[in-house]
């Protein structure tokens, strides 16, 4: 009889007793703790989003400024600040561009601490 009742996975007898033996409850402040963690996680996401937006914006401004300065220096016949673009290879230009982006991102990240 016990074999039949315990081995039958559809027998409600065992289910009822297991459910009765498995009544656990969380502490009363559990809900508050979860919701507090959730709102902290929301704030962390918002902070991260704001930080990424600031870095992208600042780096864009810096890269744009560097590009303007380079253009002015190339176009002005009297400038002393002439970048060695004439005769440079595509690799040199690519390296220059990557350096400008890295410089822009690093500066923006550094400035982000003050924003």
């Amino acid at each position: 009889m016990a074999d039949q009742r315990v081995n039958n996975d559809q027998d409600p007898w065992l289910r009822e007793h297991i459910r009765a033996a498995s009544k656990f409850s969380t502490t009363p402040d559990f809900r508050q703790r979860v919701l507090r963690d959730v709102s902290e996680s929301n704030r962390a996401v918002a902070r991260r989003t704001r930080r990424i937006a600031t870095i992208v914006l600042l780096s864009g401004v810096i890269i744009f400024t560097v590009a303007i300065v380079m253009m002015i220096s190339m176009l002005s016949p009297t400038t002393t600040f002439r970048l060695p673009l004439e005769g440079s290879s595509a690799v040199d230009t690519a390296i220059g561009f990557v350096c400008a982006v890295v410089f822009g991102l690093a500066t923006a990240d550094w400035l982000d601490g003050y924003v």
Partner: protein
Amino acid sequence: MQEKGVLTDDDIIRRIRSGESSAFGELVDRYKDKAMSLAVRLLKHEEDAEDALQEAFVKAYTSLGTFRNDSAFATWFYRIVYTTCLNTLKRKGRGQPLAEFQEDNMSGGLDSVGRESLDSEMVDRVISEALAVMHPIYASIMDLFYVQECSYDEIVSITRLPLGTVKTRLNRGRHVLRVALLQKIPDLESWLINE
């Protein structure tokens, strides 16, 4: 308009996704006690279980964007609880190897119960003791099947175990319960006939 009490999980999830993050509290209320049972079966320690459950709820909230409604929310959430508890076990180095599991664990605890005092509560006590010392890999499957009322397919999806393994573990868990019941309640057979 639907009343608060009859909101489905999907309704609540829609509210959370539309920016009403406080609606998550309703999901917490709905699942905390049942999920606590699964966590206790896996971790064997109520405080650890509650901590793991708290972590699981926060993970569920932050991953809600990845929930695609291709399964019930409960199945998806129990998968998070299950993996969080397994990670806690690994972190604490309490992942007891299967070989160490002994049915002798059942021998402590309750004294044998005499027929005169035998009632439904006694059976609950014996089952409770047996589940408390049962190895987590069996106890968790028993909990998912009997307490959470998951189907075999849902248990497979939660545990990522093959169906055969799920059925074997369920049988093994039932065997452990039967041994415990017969050991502690010698009059169980006649009691069951009379019940």
